[in-house]
Structure formats: C-alpha cells, structure tokens
C-alpha cells in the first residue's frame, strides 16, 4: 500500500512523518481533531517507525525505545540494591570469602554467596545490563538526533494554520492594525527577549536556545565515553591495583613493573588529648601520617636472583593520605601503616661475670646477622637463629613465626678458659624472653663465667615503622573524567535552558500565534504574555494554555 506522503503545500515527506516537514500540517487521518499536536522531534519520521522491520530493524527498535531504556534503568537500580545487602567480596583484602558469608550470616549469607550476589557488580548479568544500557544510549541517540537535526535546521517560517492553532500555547485575536506592522513590532519585542527572529511579511518564526535540544545527546555521548573508558581498564597494562609493604629504610619491588619504591622515613602525628573531644580521650587517632618515599627504576640485574638489582632514582615525594607519589601514570598512595616497635638490632657486650670485665660489644642484627664475631679474646660463631623462640612438642627448640618477635641466637664461643671445641651459648636479646626461657639456666655451664647482655637501651635499635602503600596504574582514568565532564555539560545544556519557538501569522486581519517549548511551559507562556504586554495587549499567561500535557 502506498501512503500518500505529499503534503498539500507540495513537500514530499518520508513515510511515517507526523507533521509535514515544511509547513507543519498534520498528515495522518486521525489527526484532524483539535487536540494539541504531538510535537516530538517536530513530527519527523524516525528510522525505527518504518514498517516491515527485519531482524536488524527489530533489534534496533528494541534498543531505541525509551520504554526499554526505563526498564533497563529500573532493573539496574534493583540489581544494585541487591549488592548492598551484604558486604561484597571485593571489600575483603585477605582471606577466603567463602568462609565469611555462611558463618556470619547464616543461610541467607550462604545463599547470597552461592547465587553470586557477593560479587554483584562484577557478575555477568550486571555487566550485561550495563552493556544494554550503553547500547540503548548509542541507538536511542542515533535514532533521534539525526532526524531532529534535520528538522530543526530547515524550518519553514510560515506554518500551516492548523499547526499553529494546535500548539500547546495559542493566542488568536482580531487585529486592527496591518498584519505586517504587527509582525514587525512583535519581531522587535521578541528580539529584545533574545529570540532569533525570521520574518516573512506578516508571518514570523522566533526561536531561542536551540542548542539546549542537543543537551541530552551530548549527555549520552558523555556517558558512552565514560562506560567505554571503564571497560578500557581491562586492557592489559592499563590498570593495576597492588598493595606493597615497605619497612622503613627498605626498597621494595613493585610486581609486574621495573620499579622499586623505598620508604626513606615514616612519620606519624597523633591528635593530642587536648585536640580530642572527651569521649575520645586517650585514644590513638592519627592526625597525619606520611612516608618520605623514593621511586627507583631498575636498570640492570632486574630479575637476577643472585645479583642485586641496579636502581636509578626517578622520583621523590612525601606521600600522605591525599597526596600520592605520581610518575608516568603510576601512583603510590598512602594506605596504612604499622608502627608497633620491632627489634632491628642489638649491641650486646661480652662480660666476665667473675671479674666484671667488659670485653667489648658487637652489632647483632635480627635479619641476616653476621656469622662470626670477635670480642676481646673470644670468638663467637653464630650457629642457629630462631625468630620466635619456643620449645616444640618434641622438646627441641623451634620457631613460631618468621618475624623477630622473640629472637634467640645460638652461639659457639671459643676462647680463654673455654673448651677447645667451644661452648654453646643461647642468647635472648629481649629481657622478657631471657626470663621466660631462663637463659642463665640453659647456659649454666658457662653463665657463671661469661654473659652476653645489652647494657642499656642505647644498645637496642628498633626497626622503623612499616608503611603500607597502594600502587595504582589507571591509564583509562583521563577518559573517565572526559566522559563525565561531557555528560555534565550535556545535562546543564539540556536542563538549564529551554528551546522555545513562536510562530505567528496574520490572515485577513486575524492574528494566530502558536508557541512550543520542550520543557517549562510556565516560562513559555510568561514569555509570550510579557511580549504582548509590551505591545499593549494584556494577556493572562494561564489563558494561553491550550490544554494537552506538560512535558
């Protein structure tokens, strides 16, 4: 069936056009009533309104529909709520999530975990929703923006009478001045109100803020860029989120890179009691903690197991919580710290118990100590070391952990007054361990003659605080911000200005005026009313309303 799409004004319209593209006359049969016109997209045919859709058209129409878009938004909204019911897996840094949900939240927690809701925002269905929203953004916009642009860029000035009288804001009146004069005056008034006016004799089209119509589409483009940028993070090398533990004074390698980061010095300031309100008194609340950090790049021997890597300094920065070290897209953030005092080294002295003579002292490190020491006439050979000393189940000495929490050193001492093969000596640097394990008892064969002990706190060196840093690379970030900014611009364009148009024609002394805006009819009416007022015609804005629904 061939639909007649040629309008009485002579213009040939596309199939599906609601209002003639040229003169605005309503084209369809059912539009002969006096109901306010459907002005969406200026009545232009949109691609998705064609008949006989094939599969591609069907998919296209599906994603182009606003109804579907709203459904997608609502479903995403509901899905997001599900992920807030219980903590998500990505909030656990250590440990196995499987062991958390059931034990802590019973059957609900277990079900939650099994159904995958503990990973809601990384699940396939959530990502699918986002993909569909992205698709809808693309197709909705493409489907509408091109016809809209076409319709708005070639607008006819003298519109069909029924087009004008079926707008939502209408005013008609018998004039007692010539039509052209009236139109000219109106043109001046509207120009004063910043309208762009095109006049053809006694008909005019006044238009304002057309740019605001593009707002939603620019917003959509921004959102699309945003989503694509977020997706781009999965490109290998574009994203890293690692935690490193850097004890003071040490440089730690950053995995998957050639970088090392060093914690030269770590400081923390706590709030004093004066600065804290009463109920927080006595608590340790950090005010400011910072790592004086240095970033190195490894230039040689980077993966060698035997040789030390050769490091070249590339950046220095004091890292505090809101101020990371940044270098070529790599950022090191202050995440946490541990300043519980840990033993680093002691300087014990060898003392003759009988004479009280002090033969001298030596530096004994907790980590990788020297194996041989000479103190006075004595030689000490370090045979074994226990990081956290304990007597095991089998009665033999053992260690409980890898950290020097209760260090013990097993020496063979050779020298005057001792047997040829040397005597054993088990040394505990910490006083509390010395007492706990009865150092003197263990070494009783020698402890009445010789003793290893640290004289004062001066002989004790503590390790500095350990700083926990979060290393991040995020090449896609700039694009995320660009997308967000474009989206914001689109929102502001679209919501804070309205596209207003006024059509006017005089036929045989009768003035017909129609106006349309995409939002804020209140403002449209008051614009028209005050323009008339300036011309001496009193009009109540409310009376201009021709019915129909607000947008």
């Amino acid at each position, binding site marked *: 069936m061939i639909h007649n799409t040629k309008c009485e004004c002579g213009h040939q319209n596309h199939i599906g056009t609601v209002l003639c593209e040229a003169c605005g006359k309503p084209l369809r049969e059912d539009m002969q009533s006096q109901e306010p016109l459907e002005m*969406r997209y200026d009545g232009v045919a949109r691609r998705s309104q064609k008949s006989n859709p094939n599969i591609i058209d069907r998919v296209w129409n599906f994603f182009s529909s*606003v109804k579907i878009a*709203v459904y997608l*938004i*609502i479903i*995403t*909204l509901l899905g*997001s*709520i599900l*992920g*807030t*019911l219980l*903590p*998500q897996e*990505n*909030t*656990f840094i250590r*440990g*196995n999530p499987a*062991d*958390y949900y059931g*034990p*802590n*939240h*019973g059957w*609900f927690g277990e079900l939650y975990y099994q159904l995958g809701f503990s990973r*809601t*925002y990384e699940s396939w269905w959530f990502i699918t929703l986002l993909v569909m929203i992205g698709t809808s953004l693309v197709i909705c916009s493409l489907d509408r923006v091109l016809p809209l642009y076409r319709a708005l860029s070639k607008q006819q000035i003298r519109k069909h009478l029924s087009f004008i009288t079926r707008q939502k804001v209408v005013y008609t009146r018998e004039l007692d001045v010539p039509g052209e004069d009236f139109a000219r005056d109106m043109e001046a008034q509207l120009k004063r109100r910043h309208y762009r006016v095109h006049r053809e004799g006694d008909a005019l089209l006044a238009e304002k803020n057309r740019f605001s119509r593009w707002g939603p589409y620019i917003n959509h483009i921004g959102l699309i860029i945003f989503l694509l940028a977020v997706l781009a993070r999965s490109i290998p090398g574009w994203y890293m989120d690692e935690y490193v533990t850097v004890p003071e004074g040490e440089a730690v390698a950053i995995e998957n890179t050639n970088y090392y980061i060093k914690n030269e010095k770590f400081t923390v300031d706590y*709030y004093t009691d004066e600065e804290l*309100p009463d109920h*927080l008194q006595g608590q340790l*609340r*950090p*005010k*400011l*903690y910072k790592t004086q950090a240095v970033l190195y790049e490894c230039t040689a021997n980077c993966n060698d197991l035997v040789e030390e890597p050769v490091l070249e300094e590339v950046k220095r920065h004091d890292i*505090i*919580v*809101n101020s*990371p070290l940044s270098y070529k897209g790599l*950022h090191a*953030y202050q*995440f946490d710290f541990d300043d519980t005092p840990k033993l680093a080294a002691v300087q014990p002295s060898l003392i003759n118990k009988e004479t009280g003579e002090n033969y001298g002292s030596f530096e004994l490190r907790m980590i990788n100590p020297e194996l041989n020491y000479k103190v006075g006439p004595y030689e000490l050979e370090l045979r074994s070391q226990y990081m956290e000393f304990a007597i095991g189940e089998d009665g033999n000495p053992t260690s409980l952990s890898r950290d020097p929490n209760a260090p013990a050193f097993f020496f063979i001492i050779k020298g005057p007054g001792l047997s040829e093969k040397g005597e054993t000596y088990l040394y505990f640097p910490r006083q509390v361990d010395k007492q706990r394990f009865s150092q003197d008892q263990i070494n009783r064969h020698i402890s009445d003659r010789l003793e290893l002990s640290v004289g004062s706190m001066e002989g004790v060196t503590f390790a500095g605080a350990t700083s926990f840093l*979060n290393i*991040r690379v995020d090449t896609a*970030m700039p694009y*995320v911000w660009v997308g*967000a900014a474009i989206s*914001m611009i689109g*929102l*502001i364009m679209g*919501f*804070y200005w309205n596209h207003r148009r006024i059509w006017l024609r005089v036929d045989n002394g009768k003035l017909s005026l129609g106006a349309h805006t995409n*939002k*804020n009819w*209140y403002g449209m009416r008051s614009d028209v009313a005050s323009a008339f007022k300036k011309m001496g015609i009193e009009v109540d804005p409310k009376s201009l*309303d021709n019915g129909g*629904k*607000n*947008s």
Partner: protein
Amino acid sequence: MNWVEFSSDAFIAAFFLYCFGFMFYVIAVAGKKWSNRDPELHVKRWARIAYIVSALGLLAHLTFFFTRWIGSGQIPTSNMYEFMTFLGMAIMIAFIIVNAIYRKPVLGMFSLPLVVLIVAYASVFPQEVQPLVPALNSIWLKVHVTTAALGEAFFAVAFAAGLMYLLRVVDFKGTGKKARRAQRWVEFTLYVIVVIIAFIATVFIFRGMGYQASFTQELVNIDSRGVETTTVQEVDYGMPPIFKPYNSEVVEMESFLGMSKPLFETPSWMEGVNAGRKLNTIVWSILIGSLLYGLLRLALRKPLGAVIHPLMDGIDPDDLDEITYRAIAIGFPVFTLGALIFAMIWANIAWSRFWGWDPKEVWALITWLFYSAYLHLRLSRGWQGAPSAWLAVIGFVIVMFTLIGVNLVISGLHSYAGVS
C-alpha cells in the same frame, strides 16, 4: 568570643524563625477564607510576611554555618548532625529559588515544615565538633558534600510539591477501588511523616527525662579468615528497652511506666553495630507515632489527607506538577555533579579508586538512576500528573535512605557515627 557557642544560638534562632515562617504560611493559605478581607490581598500580605521571616531564618542559619566553621576550623559538614543541618539550609535555599520562579505560598506551607523536620532530626545526633580522620581532609570534601546536599534539596522541594499535588488531586470522597488505593497510600505517607515526628519527639523527651539504660553484650565475630573472636561491649540506650540487645545482660535500667525489665530480646539475625538499640528506637517511634496518629484521627475524625485536601483548593494541579518537574530538572544536574562526579574525584584522591561499589556510593547511584528514570518517563504522556508525583515522593524516600539508612544500617568506608 566562642564562635561555636554563638553558632548554637544562631541555630536556635533559625529554628524558631522557620517555625514562625511555617505558621505564617499556614495563615496565608488556610486563612484566606477566614478574614473578611479580599482573599488575594490576605494571601499576598501573609505570604510576604512568611517569606521575610523564613528568609531571616535562612540568614540565621547561614550565620550558624559560618560561625561554626570559624570556630571549629573545619567546614561543618563532616558528621551526621552537621550534614543534616546543612541539608535543611540547602532545602531552604532551593525553596527560595523555586519560589522566586513560581511564587506559590502553598509551596512554603509544605517546604518549611520539611526544613524544620530535617533540622530537628539533625539535632538528635551528637553535636560536638569532631576532628577529621585524614581520609576526609580535602577541599573536595567541601565541594562534594555541599553540592550533593544542594541537589538533594531540590529533590526535597519536588517531594513537597509532589505531596501537595497528591493532596490536591486525590479524591478523598471517592469510593472506587482506584480512589481508595490512592487515598490509602497518601494517608500512609502522612502516617510515616507522623512517625518521624514522633521519633524526634521521643528522643528529646527521654533525653529531657535523662533516661538511661545500659547493657553488656557479648558478640562473636568470624572474620574472612575463619577466625572467631569474641568481644564484650557496653551498649547504652536512651530509651526504655523494649528490645534489649542480643545476648546481653542488664547493667542498669531505670524503670519506666512499671517496666523494670526489658520485654524482648533483639533476634540474633539482626546484625550490625548497635542493632538492638536501633530496633528499640524504631519500635518506640512506631509506637508513639501510631499513638499520635490515632489521637489525630480521633480529634479530626477524618483521614489526615482529607483534612489537608480542602486547603489545597484553588491551586492549579498542573502548576504543582510543573513545579515538581522543574525542581527535579534543576536539581538533577546539581546532584549528578555533587553526589557522583565530585564524589568520584574525592574518592579517587582519598581512597585511590574513583568508584568502589561502597554501599553509600551505590545508593547515590540508585538515587541517580531513579531520577533519571523519572525524567525519561516524563517524556511519555501517561506519566505526567499523579504517577509523576508519586515518583517524586518515592525518590525523596530513596534520598533519605541513602543519607540515613545506609549510614546507620549498612556499614562501609562511608559510615558516620550513629546515635540513639
């Protein structure tokens, strides 16, 4: 001079000015039939008085804000009390803007009590100035929180306008199924507002009485490594315990109305910090609220909605619909900017990830998606009018949940301290 103390005085002044503003708006709208003067003049005169008083209230409120800022050395938006008062202030500002466009006194009649309610709710929380945790110390804090609050303020005004639309449009005399359903939902909304008022009143009454009850509670927590830890903590209640905390013993408890022992125990599946105290508070609020509502119904002999409905006569519902839409249209970009974009910038700096699916962030997204759906639905004809008004009401409920519910019920990086 002590700025913080002065700020408290300014705050009280603002509160009372808002109350008076509300009363004058009621006189303006409701009283236009009383006086034997020209109703239009009456409305105009009293609306002007109400507006001036409200504006003075806002001035006092701004004074509170800035003097507190000077006195504490940090912007007063970092705990629940400060933020809520700021939100009240922002709603006042949003109201003034919308009122400047549409000049409808009845909007004041609904917006001002909303402000008063939010400010009163804020006062429930601890007011002391608290030093900032390092994570919060950034200029983006100021920008994010204030902008988000401003966006939400417009949503609040839209809520007021939406509620007004429903009260204007719902047929309280109708008996059809649809009319009945609409009446019931409007009534329910008003009932919830009564419960909130009851909550605030209950807190202050018991506080005024100096009521105290405390318990020791034993909690077992299994962390993500399967390690079980048992903690014993003290829980304080500001209201008589109808529900005592799970697995707890009474340390001391004043008796109230003959109740000398807790009546029930909070079920174990209610987890989270202070679940017992929160449940107890909610139960009390619902009790007192229902009582209050019952008394009101008895006194008025009609549903509350039916009482307010006649006050809305003479107002064009289309205008209310437009105000609702316009308020959301103004607020949405502001909300996007504040609650999403500035939040992402701040999160990126403070926690080195711009989005972590933290419950607070997700609920901000949910709010955003909801209003986005609203704006898209407005494009379709069937959604203007009453459905749109309901959406505006629901939307604000979501906003409130994001601010209050997430902080107090769900925990995360974002939580502030709760109270009562």
